[in-house]
């Protein structure tokens, strides 16, 4: 079922509701091993909801979602998954240190060995440039640094599939470049990456495919350069049109 060539993600006719309102209206998505896929779309288009459905946080109303060939709801398929949620968690009320936070990422990972815990945690923190702050509570970090700790928490699992919800938000440009280089390296080594982005940014050269969502539907699934784009010169705020509606108009012309 999980042999080479089998899709890492297979979503078919997925419908998902939040608070009684349907947010995803029958999404189809397939991601093959080693691909780096960008998930794009305006605010409220359903990007994060789709991501959370793929990682098993939100249940499906209908349709199906598979990870490495097994249903998302079955925990067996999560041991090769590294997930970076959108909201940099404040880590609850007790200020856990960066080291402790990253260590929680080892749980449920198939490569976990207690003896190797600390070196692996430190290596993950090093890879995002946070090793020097390992013993600082994440509650006392800036949003950008917290985000880097969250990336380290996903990386420590040595995931075969990395799912990132806006990994660059709040992160300064030099660090964005550093993290992008890291993703590039992982991608070269065969890690499959699904990343929600607002701008293609530092990963523009690396993304194999762009999937664009609009109002809970896939409106583009193909080459990055062919994606429907808002004309940068087009001042949609001038017309007081919401950005997602602008995106829809662009699509009509396309």
């Amino acid at each position, binding site marked *: 079922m999980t042999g080479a060539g089998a899709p890492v993600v297979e979503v078919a006719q997925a419908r998902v509701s939040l608070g009684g309102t349907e947010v995803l209206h029958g999404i189809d998505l397939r991601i093959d091993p080693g691909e780096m896929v960008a998930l794009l779309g305006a605010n409220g288009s359903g990007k994060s909801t789709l991501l*959370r459905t793929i*990682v*098993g*946080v939100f249940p499906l109303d209908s349709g199906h979602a598979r990870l490495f060939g097994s249903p998302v709801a079955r*925990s*067996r*398929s*999560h*041991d090769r*998954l590294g*997930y970076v*949620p959108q909201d940099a*968690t404040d*880590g*609850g*009320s*007790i*200020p*856990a*240190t960066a080291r*402790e*936070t990253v*260590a*929680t*990422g080892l*749980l*449920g*990972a198939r490569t976990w060995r207690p003896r190797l815990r600390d070196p692996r945690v*430190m*290596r993950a923190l*090093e*890879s995002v*440039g*946070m*090793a*020097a*702050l390992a*013993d*600082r*509570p994440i509650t*006392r*970090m*800036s949003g*950008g*640094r917290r985000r880097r700790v*969250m990336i380290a*928490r996903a990386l420590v*699992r040595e995931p075969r599939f990395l*799912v990132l919800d806006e990994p660059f938000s709040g992160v*300064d440009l*030099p*660090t964005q*470049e*550093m993290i992008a*280089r*890291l993703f590039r*390296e992982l991608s070269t080594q065969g890690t499959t990456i699904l990343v929600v982005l607002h701008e293609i940014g530092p990963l523009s050269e690396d993304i194999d495919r762009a999937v664009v969502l609009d109002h809970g539907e896939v409106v583009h699934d193909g080459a990055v350069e062919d994606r429907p784009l808002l004309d940068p010169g087009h001042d949609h705020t001038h017309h007081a049109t919401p950005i997602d509606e602008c995106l829809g108009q662009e699509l009509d012309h396309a």
Partner: protein
Amino acid sequence: MISAFDLLTSDVIRYPLIIAVLIGLTAPVVGTFLVQKRLSLLGDGLGHVALTGVAAGWLVGAWISVSPHDLLAIPGALIASVLGALAIEYVREIGHTSRDVALAILFYGGIAGGVVIIQLAGGTSQNLMGYLFGSLSTVTATDLTIALVLAVVVLAVGLGLSGLLAAVTTDEEFARASGLPVRLVNVLIAVMAALTVTLSMRIVGALMVSALMIVPVAAAQTMVVGFGRTMRTAMAIAVLAALGGLLITVYVDLPPGGVIVLLSIGVYALGLISRAVLGSPRRRERPASGHSGEPAAEQPGPSTPGQRETQAAQRGVSSTARTPHHPA
């Protein structure tokens, strides 16, 4: 005057002392996870429900004429608080009622059930006073056995699975994505809280049970950083407060629960004051810098493993000399 010899040989004093140590060890373990989940008042809600259990145990005891009347009070409290814990997790899971409203209903339902049922059992609310505020005079060998069993269960789960429990309480979304048994862990924590409530009720009292879960954790947070250190420090504080409070009440006629809780709050206040005077825990040790002064070692750099290690080594050297401090 009671001598140290009496303390060690008289069951009347020895039993409560052992239970006090058990409470001091277990309550902060559960409390750490509750505080992390922002469910600090859960223990309080369960304490109230346990009171209904005490009264129900009393009622059943009266029906089947057991002696003494309150033989089934603690088992009743155990059952009621575990059921209450499961109910609140269920309500949280289905999400129809907000968590604080569900907790409030647990509070009122628990206390109302207690006073009504105790009357039905032929008692008065006076009979509940010992359970509400705690007392030393009623501790029996059976209580000690129950407390020991409950404490072992809570400590084994709370410390043995601390990594898992910390992961789930810290970030439920990430835990779900990692395939961790989130629902099971939430139920486990709620049930552990119920067991701790039952174990602590005799001495500390249902109204103050939760204080020993929460106050030592709050006190520890003023002194140390990090999840594990907070838990261990809270355990030390709670054991000292429970033992100290109990010893005071051996010599001075005061309610043990109240004295223990006041001692814990005293430690918390001392922690706050010392933090105000000395600064945050470990502040001066930590290398820190603001965004503008990002350390050179954190700049993007080569990321092959070998180079990364070299970087880390450099970072280790430079981190001690890093200035200025600027909390992010």
